[in-house]
């Protein structure tokens, strides 16, 4: 395959992994985070340390990177998820920036100048495989009682408690799974770029992930997939007229948000059965339209 396209697909896949995690947290549990780049950084540096300094194989290193990110998220969650209001969102923002600043000063990892020489283990096939597993895990989780409880919390927190849902426990579970996805994405990134630098994980990165989730549609896994593909590919495709690149990107996001505030696929999933339903509904509408002309008003 054309290495240029392959590169874009790998980047989209890495973004997708982090976006899927954020989708669970923001799209399905209703919690906004502006620190997911921080979890990516933790996963990235952890897994790179394991492969470079301890010569671990790739996949276990990735998983441990995800695990460590999840542990960090558990600490933030423990402190802030009990509080009412936007403390959590603000805490994640502070956390993301703090992680970056700390890494700037850790000479063991090369500090602010960066850390070259990480082995190139990430390729299209393992990115694809990992994302496939990630989507399946997420889909199964969302369709279980645990996932439904998270959705319930997003919809109406007090009512969730009244029907016996332990809101704190479900929020922290969602956060930990979400952070582990971001951590794995960070590991994939480290072993694709073969280079890590703290500024790769700035607030801009966290915001980009949130934009993708909202663009794709809150509460939709397929929307997140579509969003990650479109919004990673778009800046690359537009690279040829570079000065207008970010303007076009911004315009695309704004147009979608104005014409479809719920995002591309907000609340809907593209599955074979849902496409069939949609097709049937469209057909019925067409028929109803024809009958309406003859029948006049009924109600």
């Amino acid at each position, binding site marked *: 395959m054309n290495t240029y396209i392959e590169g874009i697909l790998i980047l989209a896949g890495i973004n997708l992994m982090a976006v899927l995690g954020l989708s669970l947290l923001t799209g399905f549990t209703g919690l906004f985070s502006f620190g997911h780049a921080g979890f990516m950084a933790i996963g990235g540096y952890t897994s790179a340390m394991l492969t470079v300094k301890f010569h671990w194989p790739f996949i276990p290193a990735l998983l441990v990177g995800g695990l460590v990110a999840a542990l960090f998220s558990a600490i933030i969650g423990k402190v802030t998820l009990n509080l009412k209001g936007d403390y959590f969102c603000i805490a994640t923002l502070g956390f993301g920036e703090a992680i970056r600043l700390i890494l700037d000063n850790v000479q063991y990892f090369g500090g602010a100048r960066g850390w070259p020489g990480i082995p190139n283990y990430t390729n299209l096939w393992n990115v694809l495989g990992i994302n496939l597993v990630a989507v399946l895990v997420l889909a*199964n*989780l969302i369709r279980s009682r*645990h996932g*439904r409880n998270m959705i319930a919390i997003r*919809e109406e927190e007090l009512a969730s408690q*009244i*029907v016996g849902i332990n809101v704190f426990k479900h929020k922290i579970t969602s956060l930990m799974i979400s952070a582990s996805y971001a951590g794995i994405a960070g590991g994939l990134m480290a072993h694709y770029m073969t280079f890590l630098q703290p500024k790769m994980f700035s607030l801009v990165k966290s915001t980009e992930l949130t934009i993708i989730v909202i663009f794709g549609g809150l509460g939709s896994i397929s929307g997140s997939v579509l969003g990650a593909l479109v919004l990673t590919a778009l800046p690359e495709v537009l690279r040829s007229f570079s000065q207008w690149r970010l303007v076009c990107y911004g315009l695309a996001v704004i147009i979608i948000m104005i014409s479809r505030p719920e995002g591309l696929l907000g609340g809907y999933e593209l599955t074979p059965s849902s496409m069939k339903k949609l097709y049937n509904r469209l057909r019925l509408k067409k028929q109803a339209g024809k009958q309406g002309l003859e029948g006049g008003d009924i109600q």
Partner: protein
Amino acid sequence: MNILELSGLTKKFGGLTAVGNVDFKVKKDSITGLIGPNGAGKTTIFNLITGVYKVSEGKVIFCNKNITNKEPYQIAEIGITRTFQNIRLFKRLSVYENVLIACHKNASYSILDSILMMPKYKREEKQLKLQANELLEIMGLSDRRELIANNLPYGLQRRLEIARALALKPQLLLLDEPAAGMNPDETEQLMLLIDDVRKKFQLTVLIIEHHMDLVMGICEEIMVLNFGCKLAEGTPYDIQNNPKVIEAYLGVEG
């Protein structure tokens, strides 16, 4: 036997005493009414029982266990569920999903079971779905199961909220003005439904209501609250003939 006992229950909001030193007992298997003028503190009592508000003083005792100041989700686990005066459904979800979510306590599979699609997950999930459908059937909501909850007519939204509460198989059901906004016909139907559901699920029901014919019609025992304090309690007959109650409701000159 008493299923619920409030002793010296007090709730203060700053300087305002919304509920003051209320002692009250609810008999098991009864339908008990809680009435009083607007702002008397009825909803606050529900919020105290269900842990939505923290109690300032006093105790809530359920089946001889002290449950004061537990978290709302723990109260639900213990066996008390409620509806809200201003309906709180999962508005953007379907009727069916509203009930299915609330059925969650009747399954025990873990997150890992669901991710790996273990037999336990499949078996229990099937069970939950059956149960949700059965509840919709009982509550007469089957034909609207795919409708978005927010699009239901008002009366049916109240019904759905009761269905959702029943999904937890509670022992005590708290209804906060279930007939609010209903016409006399719907109110009558609701009365029959509440009585029916109570027998079917072997429930105790504590009900806040302003429709006096509903309260007097189905309650065996009534407590009257006024300015946060207990004004009277007794059978509907006692209450209707209690001069203090008549005074509180109609006001008195001089």
